[in-house]
């Protein structure tokens, strides 16, 4: 449930759905996100620049010359959006992943922590239907959950300076895919050749908040032969 709306400076508001990070809370966030997006597209509200969902919050940025925060807050409060029944998101995206030791940089660290062997870690990762909580930090990077709880681990104490594009990492109950080469502190378990983000495509990001991701294991040879559309 929407618990609180607060201002962020003079041109932003945050809609806070509570402290819990779980699918239920996030689905509430995405419901409001869909409503705002639809309201912007159908010009029911003006001056909205961006709307960014995260685990438990939706942040809305607006153009101060067009609209003020109290008008947006009023719009949300009077909308009854929570009663809108949106069609259930049934989009499932299969993402190939290669768990070869060249890519699975932190498998030893995970084996030690989880007391599971390599095969068991892989099978637990593959059996999960991951929910897309949010996309961001950099373009197209998805934050997925929830991991099988036997795989939970902390961040690396010292983040790596460079993580290759396509690397798949896990931390606590989350899984992410690096869409750009960047620094990072997640436990890397494999790499995908699948391009999740391409600015030149109509759908720049393959994934959207609320989608489902299922990983599919591929060999190193298949990884090398993989072609993005």
């Amino acid at each position, binding site marked *: 449930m929407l618990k609180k709306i607060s201002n962020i400076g003079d041109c932003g508001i945050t809609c806070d759905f509570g402290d819990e990070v779980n699918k239920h809370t996030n689905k509430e966030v995405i419901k409001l996100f869909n409503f705002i997006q639809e309201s912007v597209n159908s010009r029911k509200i003006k001056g909205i620049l961006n709307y960014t969902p995260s685990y438990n919050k939706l942040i809305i940025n607006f153009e101060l010359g067009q609209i003020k925060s109290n008008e947006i807050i009023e719009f949300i409060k009077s909308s009854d959006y929570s009663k809108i029944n949106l069609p259930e998101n049934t989009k499932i995206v299969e993402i190939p992943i290669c768990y070869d030791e060249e890519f699975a940089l932190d498998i030893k660290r995970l084996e030690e922590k989880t007391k599971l062997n390599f095969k068991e870690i892989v099978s637990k990762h593959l059996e999960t239907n991951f929910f897309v909580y949010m996309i*961001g930090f950099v*373009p197209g990077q998805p934050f997925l959950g929830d991991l099988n709880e036997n795989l939970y681990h902390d961040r690396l104490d010292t983040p790596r300076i460079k993580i290759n594009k396509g690397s798949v990492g896990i931390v606590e109950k989350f899984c992410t895919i690096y869409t*750009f080469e960047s620094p990072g502190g997640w436990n890397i378990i494999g790499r995908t050749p699948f391009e999740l983000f391409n*600015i030149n495509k109509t759908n720049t990001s393959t994934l959207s908040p609320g989608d489902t991701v299922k990983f599919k294991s591929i060999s190193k040879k298949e990884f090398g032969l993989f072609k993005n559309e």
Partner: protein
Amino acid sequence: MNNYFKVLRPGINSTFQDLGRFGLQHLGIVASGCMDQLSFYHSNKLVGNKISEGALEFAYQGPLIEMKGETALVAISGKVNFNVIKTNGETIKGISNESFLISNGDKIDILSTINSVYGYFSIFGGFKIEEVKGSVSTLVRAKIGPNNGNKLKVDDKIFFNKSNQVDKLKKIKFDFDKDNTIRVMKGLQCHYFSKKSQEDFFSKEYKVTKLTDRMGMRLEGQKLENTVNKNIKSEGITKGSIQVPGDGQPIILLSDHPTIGGYPKIANVITADYDKLVQKTPGTIIKFKLVNLAVAENAFQDYVRKF
């Protein structure tokens, strides 16, 4: 005939920008856009363009470019030291915030911004650059924008639209706000910081460090003590948010900020003071003044009157 500028020296960080790329932050794409909106607006106004026309933004040292083609009306806004070098070798000292004509073979040498960071270069009719998702702003980190999302490099050609109608020469009287007080509103996690740290932040001096770019401005000053939690659940980020990582030194998130982040935010810069802030050079001592929403909205009304 093709009209273009040849880049002889690219400058430090020269990119095309407009007012920003919106509606995509939920996919991880930050708005970007010009850092100093008022200066950006001036450069377009000086040559008679629409306000949203893409301009070339440069930081500190700008490019050295040679014009090929028919005479054109151009302008440089901000506070900029530059020369126009004519084909006969004559060097004319340029004046920023005044439009001027350049002819085939002329060079423009943008030497430096003066006690400021950003300047803008505009041409009547606009540059011939491609929009990406509705904007010509460049996000170098993700290679999004015209020029394949890159900053200018040597030998690039910048094509421009030739328009037969030449706008009149114009001047704008302009100087940067020398005041170093930046007005802020309380951030979402302001209460994460000790009472003393909150008082320190809203009263003590902070120095702009060299670790400052289009993404963020790192400050140095009284360490801020977080008494609740050094991390928060990652949430969407707004331009001008001031986050405080574990080391207690604040970072102001600027136009190319990450779209989500997990550090607590002590304050947010108000819209009216953003342009002033981004023009502060490393080493500048700034102070924050706490204001409420009503003051910020009134300040915005005063700010838009300058446009």
